[in-house]
């Protein structure tokens, strides 16, 4: 066992990045950022005031006219420069994520890579942002569309991917000529500070990118600021739908709102078991189950003998998962990001027991590899005999719990999935093309996996979501993001 060097050596006093300057918040309120594995405080994050949020928006608004006049090719070059800096700092950025979030170093490196890919795709903006035209819509009259930026966009970030999720949006916003204000999650804001430092080093003009720390008050201030043209949000459905989306509607803002999930992994009797098990391990227990694309319900189709053999194989593999500090590179699952998160998962386990599901693997008192406090640690758990009407089969647990269900055939499994209020990332494991197509065709899910446990779209595809998992029209990433961050202007011209 060897623990990699920690890049954060002292308690960081985090500042806001407004108008190209690092500004100390005057709110006087700070919250400790703790390493969830060691419980050491690694940062102090300010709870910025409404005035401070507004100052960031004003800086972004003032930077907008010049930035939008910067040719797309030049904006792309800024992103190329940023991309090089991100590569240079790849390992540091990854280790910071592990320190503030708790995920394993492999997972953090994966997050960093995904984030960089967003910058790479957005750097193709000269091609992505082109409009289209048609000659002679009437005699001597031509018509064309140009895509123009709108102004200032805001992002309210979640805690589960502190580096990557803001990058689903910000590179596309900047590339299209908009300016940006991000409010990182106060639970793990350091990754966004590191990113802003590199944005500063890349010489992206002052005010184009801004970071303002804070909690719910800062988020509301952002939503109520009339100069913000659109907001992107990733978090719970309750806040996403009832606060963010609603408020954006009231104030005329564009919105991409990604909410909760309850993802089903369907196992057909013809699945390649050896290849499926690792995919399920990463789906259910990767990032300690704190992904909106994590597997939650494992639906096994088939006769008793197949069911039992598959479940035993799965449970055996899960029971061997090494839990500990993610900077130890032998660790396969880190702690929950917070005590609240752990308590929430424990509550769901209690509910599962109370509702008579059978707990066949109990993660409540995990074996922790290394000498770390158990404050945020929890082991993987598996419930059997779960049905979609049970609380643990219905609600998002957002932790390392697998709820095992049975279905007599694919039709029943698809009906189960489609009866869920969520539709984020559902997958089928099968060797049958027919079954896979049927699943893909009928399942109500923004992202669909075929023999893939985490259905995360690449940067050049939109990140989907349906039903209570998504509110909005256009999605983050790829061409959808380019459209979200631009207005279509139609020109009809005739020359006399």
């Amino acid at each position, binding site marked *: 066992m060897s623990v990699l060097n920690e890049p954060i050596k002292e308690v960081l006093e985090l500042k806001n990045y407004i108008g190209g300057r690092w500004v100390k918040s005057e709110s006087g309120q700070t919250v400790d950022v703790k390493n969830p594995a060691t419980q050491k405080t690694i940062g102090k994050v300010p709870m910025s005031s409404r005035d401070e949020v507004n100052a960031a928006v004003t800086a972004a608004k003032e930077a907008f006219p010049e930035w939008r006049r910067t040719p797309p090719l030049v904006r792309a070059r800024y992103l190329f420069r940023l991309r090089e800096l991100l590569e240079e700092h790849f390992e540091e950025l990854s280790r910071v994520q592990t320190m503030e979030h708790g995920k394993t170093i492999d997972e953090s490196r994966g997050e960093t890579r995904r984030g960089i890919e967003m910058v790479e795709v957005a750097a193709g903006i000269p091609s992505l942002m082109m409009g289209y035209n048609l000659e002679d819509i009437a005699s001597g009259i031509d018509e064309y569309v140009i895509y123009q930026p709108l102004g200032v966009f805001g992002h309210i970030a979640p805690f589960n991917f502190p580096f990557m999720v803001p990058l689903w949006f910000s590179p596309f916003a900047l590339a299209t000529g908009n300016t940006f204000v991000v409010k990182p999650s106060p639970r793990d804001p350091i990754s966004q500070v590191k990113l802003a430092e590199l944005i500063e080093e890349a010489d992206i003009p002052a005010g184009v990118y801004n970071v303002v720390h804070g909690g719910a008050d800062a988020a509301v201030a952002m939503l109520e600021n009339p100069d913000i043209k659109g907001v992107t949000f990733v978090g719970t459905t309750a806040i996403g739908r009832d606060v963010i989306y609603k408020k954006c509607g009231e104030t005329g803002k564009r919105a991409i709102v990604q909410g909760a999930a309850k993802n089903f992994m369907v196992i057909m009797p013809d699945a390649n078991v050896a290849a499926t098990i690792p995919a399920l*391990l990463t789906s259910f227990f990767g990032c300690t189950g704190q992904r909106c*694309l994590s597997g939650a319900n494992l639906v096994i189709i088939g006769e008793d003998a197949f069911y039992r053999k598959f479940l035993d194989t799965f449970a055996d593999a899960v029971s061997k998962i090494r839990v500990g500090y993610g900077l130890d590179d032998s660790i396969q699952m880190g702690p929950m990001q917070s005590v609240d998160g752990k308590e929430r998962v424990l509550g769901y386990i209690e509910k599962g027991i109370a509702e008579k599901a059978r707990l066949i693997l109990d993660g409540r008192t995990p074996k922790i590899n290394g000498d770390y406090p158990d404050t945020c640690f929890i082991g993987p758990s598996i419930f059997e005999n779960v049905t979609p009407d049970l609380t643990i089969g219905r609600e998002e647990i957002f932790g390392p719990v697998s709820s095992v269900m049975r279905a007599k055939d694919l039709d029943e499994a698809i009906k189960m999935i489609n009866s869920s209020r969520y539709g984020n990332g559902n997958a089928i494991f099968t060797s049958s093309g027919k079954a896979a197509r049927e699943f893909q065709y009928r399942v109500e899910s923004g992202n669909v996996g075929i023999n893939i446990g985490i259905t995360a779209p690449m940067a050049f595809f939109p990140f989907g979501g349906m039903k209570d998992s998504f509110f909005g029209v256009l999605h983050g990433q790829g061409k959808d993001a380019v459209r979200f961050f631009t207005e279509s202007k139609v020109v009809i011209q005739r020359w006399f």
Partner: protein
Amino acid sequence: MKFNTASQVISFARKLEEDGIDFYESMAKRYTEDSDILLGFARENKKNITRVERAYYGVISDAIEGCFTFDLDPEEFAIKPEDLQHPAGSNSINTAIEMESQTARFYDKAAEQSKSLLADVPRAFSTMVKLRDDRRKKLASLRDTGNLAEQPEPR
């Protein structure tokens, strides 16, 4: 302890390559007539570290099974440290061949187990296997032709 994570396997690959660098650099001092070949192996090992790490860092993604891909026992591929540190006498060439065989077996197994990762990773491992096969042939040829004449210990 077995290796299960991609990070462990990549770190181990780096260690194998670094051990090889030390070994060949040390051997080159002793067999000066063939030092070009031996130092060439050491230089190649440095490139190998870059190639393997580039493949890993280039494709590692939060969506792949980085933490659950491998089941490798490093003890199977370990070379005795004393052999690596003191490549002396007629055994050194055999130690080199044995080291390359062990390394090739490690990469071969890693390639097999990493098929669920994106293609670049198993491909990089497989490239390392081929490279080791070539190297073993070269070493065996040097041994069989009576090259690698040992120089007297410097006084």
